[in-house]
């Protein structure tokens, strides 16, 4: 196969044509969809600080021209060992570099049950019709903003997981996306569909192959948890600190279904993520766990949304952030309860641990409630590391760094306790431990 996309290709009309030419094997409905989204992208402006959602997240230094649509010929890159799969007996795995799949494996017995797990690019050519329904559902709106439009027009990578009715997958599935080289792009869509009564655990993580190259991730994640189904989903964002990360993520949780969604956000120069959960059927349940650790000049902005559309649903969100240096986090959380959402039980909380006086954390919780019989609570705290605790630990023979590491680990313990997958807890603890530096005296 010849590659129409060269190193000099940009995200412009010619670059888009080259991308289409390269993906000529895709179903017609998808090509058409890409074209519509590309037109919308060309007509739209980037969000600016005038938009409420972007007021605290400045992207004026983001230049799309510094990045190129990914060439379609995958090159396997020996990256570091993935963190989340360490010591785990996996049922399947997918790896990609710069948005192109380099590896895809799934146990034969899982395949035999009708499960589909692999690269979305391959799946759209093999299971195009079934996937068209998932695309048409537009769990994430392709016109939400200019990033969503660009993603819908130009995605190359991503993962699909489809679990048929009543099928339970015991072994976790794992996917890792890597960015390699300056100007590299990871433009991905992840689609997860669990049919009625299905069960699965999906671990996804990202990494950069070096610390210096500026990369771009622009992704969407669309999850549908069918009636009575159970999904445990972990997403660890561990790019290098020069990567721009933009994401729209949404899960729709059906009647009596359960979702446990854990997010780890450690990397990126700037991240702007919309993470939404819709409780769409009665008695649905969602637990959302977030762990963020920032340093240097990182800026991570997470907008979370818990939408109670049906009665008797429970949602419980806990985000814990620790900040070093002059890094900044922004969390805006919204609990929305529709009129139909009677007997809702919803909770959201964000705690921040400031490890430096120059770090800054903004927490903006919100409630929008139209039902009259609900229990909705929210909270947020921000605190400095307690000097007397450090002093005490040092008097017992620990170094300052060890003391800080212990305090940070203790701070995260509450959210770690909620994570039911051992390897994930360990991997997050490990990754954070590696990033803890000595605290400046202040």
């Amino acid at each position, binding site marked *: 196969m010849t590659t129409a996309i060269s190193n000099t290709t940009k995200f412009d009309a010619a670059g888009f044509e080259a991308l289409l030419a390269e993906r000529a094997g895709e179903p017609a409905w998808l090509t058409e969809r890409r074209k519509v989204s590309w037109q919308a992208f060309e007509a739209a402006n980037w969000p600016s*600080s005038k938009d409420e959602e972007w007021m605290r997240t400045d992207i004026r230094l983001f230049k799309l021209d510094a990045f190129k649509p990914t060439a379609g010929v995958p090159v396997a890159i020996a990256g570091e060992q993935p963190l989340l799969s360490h010591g785990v007996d996996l049922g399947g795995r997918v790896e990609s570099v710069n948005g192109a799949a380099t590896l895809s494996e799934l146990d034969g017995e899982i395949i035999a049950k009708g499960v589909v797990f692999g690269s979305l690019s391959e799946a759209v050519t093999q299971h195009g019709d079934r996937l068209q329904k998932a695309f048409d559902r537009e769990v994430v709106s392709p016109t939400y903003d200019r990033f969503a439009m660009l993603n819908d027009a130009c995605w190359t990578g991503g993962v699909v997981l489809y679990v048929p009715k009543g099928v339970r997958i015991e072994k976790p599935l794992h996917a890792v996306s890597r960015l390699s080289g300056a100007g590299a792009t990871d433009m991905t869509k992840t689609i997860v569909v669990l049919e009625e009564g299905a069960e699965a655990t999906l671990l996804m993580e990202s990494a950069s192959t070096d610390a210096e190259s500026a990369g771009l991730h622009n992704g969407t994640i669309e999850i549908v948890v069918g009636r009575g189904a159970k999904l445990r989903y972990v997403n660890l964002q561990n790019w290098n600190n*020069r990567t721009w990360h933009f994401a729209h993520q949404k899960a729709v949780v059906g009647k009596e279904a359960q979702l446990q969604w854990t997010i780890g956000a450690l990397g990126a120069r700037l991240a702007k993520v919309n993470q939404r959960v819709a409780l769409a059927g009665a008695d649905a349940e969602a637990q959302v766990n977030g762990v963020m650790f920032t340093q240097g000049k990182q800026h991570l902005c997470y907008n979370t949304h818990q939408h109670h559309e049906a009665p008797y649903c429970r949602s419980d969100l806990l985000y814990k952030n620790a900040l070093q240096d002059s890094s900044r986090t922004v969390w805006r959380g919204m609990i929305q309860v529709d009129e139909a959402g009677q007997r809702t039980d919803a909770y959201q909380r964000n705690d921040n641990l400031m490890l430096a006086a120059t770090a800054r954390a903004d927490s903006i919780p919100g409630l929008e409630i139209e039902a009259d019989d609900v229990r909705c609570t929210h909270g947020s705290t921000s605190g400095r590391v307690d000097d007397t605790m450090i002093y005490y630990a040092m008097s017992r023979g620990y170094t300052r760094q060890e003391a800080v590491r212990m305090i940070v680990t203790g701070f995260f313990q509450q959210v770690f306790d909620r994570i039911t997958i051992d390897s994930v807890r360990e991997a997050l603890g490990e990754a954070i431990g590696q990033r803890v530096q000595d605290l400046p005296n202040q």
Partner: protein
Amino acid sequence: MSEFIPVGPITDFADPSSTLVEVDDESVALIHAAGSFYALDDVCTHDGGPLSDGPLHEDENPPAIACPRHGAKFALTTGAALTMPATQPTRVHEVKVEDGQVLVKLTV
């Protein structure tokens, strides 16, 4: 170690004007006013407003720029917060002109 980094030819920056420039991954407001160049963090210390988008008050004493968001003024020479709602100074950086090029050195 920070060093002087070129941000563009002097002709790119009219007098008076304020422009957002990128210096070593940071947003810097580069201001050209009454024949002098000034560089400040492009981040208002009140609530992160983009200073380079705000109005210049180069004739005042001291010369200042105002945040477009809620109007806090900052001194061009020192970065001092001159009016509410900002209370903390913003960082100022060194600027020089050499061979028609403007260069900025970040204060660390």
